[in-house]
């Protein structure tokens, strides 16, 4: 599939000189990208690079994934100003990317069906913009947020309903916009590593690993094996904590308290295992470019393994009740359903995609770092409903547990840190990491001095929020909490 591509191929967590990436006039580039996506490639990133030579112009850049061929590919347009024919008109998965392009660079994707801001607005309140409205005497509109009823991040949900039935849901985000990506050109700065750890604070390891991998690819030197090993371990601990918490929260949303109570506590137990490594429950300080911030010595690894076994056994039991309780099955099955073709056309990633039967997992499709040597099987479940997304999480807990049991006892020898060479100039590096939510993608382009010229962060939530909106169509508005929880997307990771 990737064999005949005119795009430049590159493997995950590697780099390519900027000059070697093929370029097209913008309309031809859109056409070439659409052709590759039609042939089965997937859009990981579609972003702009401001061109300083010709002031006020922009290049488009596409990062594609040929999952079955285990390779990525990059292409770019020639600089242009004004407008270009939108990719979204034929490729749904590009729709948010093109809204972002318009917002960040002022280029107009001609023909985009719903062009509005992604994060920024004139009045600093994202819900102030226009919303798609369904007209009719029995249609009513429900507005929720930005401040929600629980202890969660802010976002605005606008439902068009006929009675209980949701005809359409539009999600307005941007409330969490902290300028995470905007601050990066000219970097890395002193605070950059710490900002990467808090792009989405519940996916610290994933984003930090993607960032470190980008710097290592730009420096031309991998992290020591022992650091790669530790990152893989920390990534699965992060997955265990969040998946367990999600299953507990799903149970809570259908008022099934035994699993909710048990999983809530067990989530904390998994966070504490991460804290055994670095002192911080969210893994701050573990991943450093070219290094590990902490080592996991044999004795500590053994203690971690013993505690892990206890937590895994407890989780297995607490989650099994979900499948045994008819009241839970009745509330999970056939709720928030997406078809595999919807998931594919929206470009969903992570458990949301795998819960629609799509085999899509960076650890398997694009192995980098330690995942070149040690794999966990990809978990897939058909159905596309809340039940399927819950099942995927529960099975991934088992697989992550097995992976950890295997890896904890088999550390590679050697140092855990080395001095990383400075980034090479005029080079594009791309790193994908399978976070617990799905694919985290970081792409960095250096300038002539080796500093960041452009840095693009794509949290899996960027791909998946539209999946939640589509899953609600035709469902009952009272199912929204359990649907929302079954995706559990990041607001700050999206808002950047």
């Amino acid at each position, binding site marked *: 599939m990737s064999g005949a591509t005119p795009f430049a191929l590159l493997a995950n967590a590697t780099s390519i000189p900027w000059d070697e990436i093929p370029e097209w006039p913008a309309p031809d580039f859109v056409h070439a990208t659409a052709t590759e996506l039609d042939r089965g490639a997937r859009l990981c990133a579609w972003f702009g690079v401001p061109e300083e030579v010709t002031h006020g112009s922009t290049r488009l850049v596409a990062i594609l994934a040929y999952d079955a061929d285990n390779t990525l590919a990059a292409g770019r347009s020639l600089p242009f100003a004004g407008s270009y024919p939108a990719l979204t008109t034929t490729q749904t998965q590009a729709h948010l990317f093109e809204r972002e392009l318009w917002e960040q660079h002022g280029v107009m994707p001609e023909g985009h069906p719903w062009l509005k801001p992604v994060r920024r607005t004139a009045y600093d*309140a994202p819900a102030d913009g226009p919303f798609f409205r369904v007209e009719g005497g029995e249609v009513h509109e429900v507005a929720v947020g930005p401040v929600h009823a*629980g202890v969660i991040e802010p976002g605005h949900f606008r439902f068009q309903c006929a009675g209980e039935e949701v005809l359409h849901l539009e999600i307005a985000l941007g409330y969490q916009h902290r300028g995470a990506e905007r601050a990066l050109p000219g970097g890395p700065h002193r605070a950059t590593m710490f900002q990467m750890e808090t792009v989405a604070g519940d996916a610290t390891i994933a984003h930090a690993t993607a960032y470190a991998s980008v710097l290592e690819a730009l420096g031309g030197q991998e992290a020591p094996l022992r650091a790669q090993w530790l990152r893989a371990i920390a990534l699965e601990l992060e997955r265990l904590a969040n998946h367990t918490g999600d299953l507990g929260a799903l149970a809570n949303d259908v008022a099934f308290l035994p699993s909710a109570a048990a999983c809530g506590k067990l989530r904390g137990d998994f966070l504490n295992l991460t804290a055994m490594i670095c002192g911080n429950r969210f893994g*701050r300080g573990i991943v450093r470019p070219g290094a590990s911030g902490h080592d996991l010595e044999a004795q500590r690894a053994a203690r971690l393994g013993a505690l892990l076994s206890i937590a895994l056994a407890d989780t297995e039991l607490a989650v099994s009740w979900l499948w045994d309780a008819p009241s839970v099955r009745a509330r999970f099955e056939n709720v928030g359903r997406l078809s595999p073709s919807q998931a594919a056309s929206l470009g969903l990633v992570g458990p949301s995609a795998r819960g629609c039967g799509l085999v899509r997992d960076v650890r398997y499709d694009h192995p980098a770092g330690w995942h070149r040597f040690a794999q966990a099987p990809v978990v897939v479940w058909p159905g596309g409903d809340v039940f399927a997304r819950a099942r995927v999480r529960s099975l991934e807990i088992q697989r992550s547990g097995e992976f950890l049991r295997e890896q904890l006892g088999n550390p590679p020898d050697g140092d855990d840190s080395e001095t990383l060479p400075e980034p090479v100039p005029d080079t594009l590096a791309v790193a994908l990491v399978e976070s617990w939510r799905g694919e985290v993608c970081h792409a960095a382009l250096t300038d002539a001095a080796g500093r960041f010229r452009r840095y693009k962060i794509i949290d899996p939530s960027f791909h998946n929020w539209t999946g939640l909106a589509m899953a609600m169509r035709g469902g009952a508005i009272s199912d929204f909490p359990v649907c929302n929880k079954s995706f559990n997307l*990041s607001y700050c990771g999206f808002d950047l």
Partner: protein
Amino acid sequence: MLATDLLLYRLTRGIETIAYPDGPAPTLPDRHGGALRVDGAKCVDGCRECVEVCPTEAITRVDGGSVALDLGRCIFCAACVKTCPTGAITQTGDHRMAARERRDLVLGERGHEEVHLAAALDEKLRRLFGRSLRLRQVSAGGCNGCESDVNVLGTIGWDLSRFGIQFVASPRHADGLLITGPVTNNMKLALQKTWDAVPEPKIVIAVGACAIAGGPFVGHPEVNDGAASTVPVDLFIPGCPPHPLTILDGLLRLLDRLDDRRLTNARPEPADIR
């Protein structure tokens, strides 16, 4: 049968809620480090090594003066602890670090080497909120780290509601706000409106480095460097994110539900707190 299985499971597990504060506090992870202590008297003339490694510029030193570390702005990366040539900045291992006044978090000068821990609310507010505090949580740019560890307090392991503290779904039902995040421009209006909707008298608790001073995003034009930019803050709980124990300590300290003398006792006496 599932129902009997579940009942039996609960019986075999017993009480899973931590004994604290009646019993000893759970131990922090050995690499946590806890609060910092800054002994400015140990600083060498002209040394600025800690100032230069701090990612959030939480450490300042004016020429000829002693070093000042703002624990509210600190994200606890411990780079300063490692780099300090004289051991002036050290980790205490203490989970307690909540303060009532912003200046109480600035460490370094003689007499201010450690955090001046939070005093309780005045008697009038304590009588109102001491045994029943309802909080509305507002995340205003939080990364879901602080939010997660605030949520943890509601699990059976911590059982925050045993102290009469609960998170409520409407500001109208709340006695105050618990704020996380640096207060983004896009959330400033929503935070202001939520604050306005809480009936008087009301309190505000800022949790985490972002809500206190902007955290890793301090100085970005998209954020307002903390909750105090928008609403008056009554309690600051440092951390990135703060350990749940640190948050709980802050809340209980504010409500005068802790007795430090008894807590540091090797053999705690039976509780009279509840």
